[in-house]
């Protein structure tokens, strides 16, 4: 059985990505980088959903991923709008 058929391998990658993203949110101070880190986390979750869906032979996980994609797109729009508008009123972006 090749390793790519092991759900564990996918889940470990997903866990690593999620924690890397979480670390990015916690240690970086630039809101745009924090925002990108959140995208990393959401993608890691999607990866988990996909792996589970594949190995459980159910498409519920796909549906979830589908929805997360939509929601993430919406969050991107709102989040970037807020960050850009702060830039317009204040010429320094930094979050502690």
């Amino acid at each position, binding site marked *: 059985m090749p390793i790519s058929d092991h759900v564990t391998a996918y889940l470990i990658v997903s866990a690593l990505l999620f924690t890397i993203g979480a670390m990015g949110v916690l240690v970086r101070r630039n809101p745009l980088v924090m925002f990108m880190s959140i*995208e990393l986390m959401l993608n890691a979750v999607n990866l988990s959903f996909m792996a589970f869906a594949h190995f459980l032979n159910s498409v519920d996980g796909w549906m979830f991923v589908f929805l997360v994609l939509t929601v993430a797109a919406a969050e991107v729009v*709102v989040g970037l709008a807020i960050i850009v508008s702060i830039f317009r009123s204040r*010429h320094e972006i930094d979050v502690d």
Partner: protein
Amino acid sequence: MLDLPTVAFYIIAILLVGTALAVVLSRNIVHAALFLAVFFGAAAGVYVLLNAEFIAIVQVLIYAGAVTILVLFAIMLTQNAMSRNANPFAGQWWLAAIICAALAIGIIYAVGSSKMALLSANASANMTTAGAAGGSIVRLGQLLYSPFDYSYVLPFEIASIVLLVAIVGAIVIGRED
């Protein structure tokens, strides 16, 4: 024994983790955004390995395409305002690193020790789509419109409200007047 999917998986996995680290650690924000684009593409590669071609395409379209472009735009619009702070990392980065490492170890341990449960659950997984033929699109469509015992049509429709809120919000926040 190394077969093609395994090799592909290893390459993509290393690419994913590497680009994710690069996004988090790179001091140049444009580099971070470009690494993010590579990351999104690599994630689509994993989905192909998992036989979910449709999701892979959507991933490329939305994430690698739209989201990356939006992030680059945001960087462009705010470039002059980026903090010139000497240290782009928060003071307690080591604390965060410890917490995150603990989190990663916990999840990986749980995942590793639950392997058998997952494989046995495989047999008893819900049978909604067990008989479904065809690719990922067909199975998704069935789950939406020809359900066996449940259907995701309501959240699917309600996602439009999420988008409506985002549209209204972008206009409210973005419009200058």
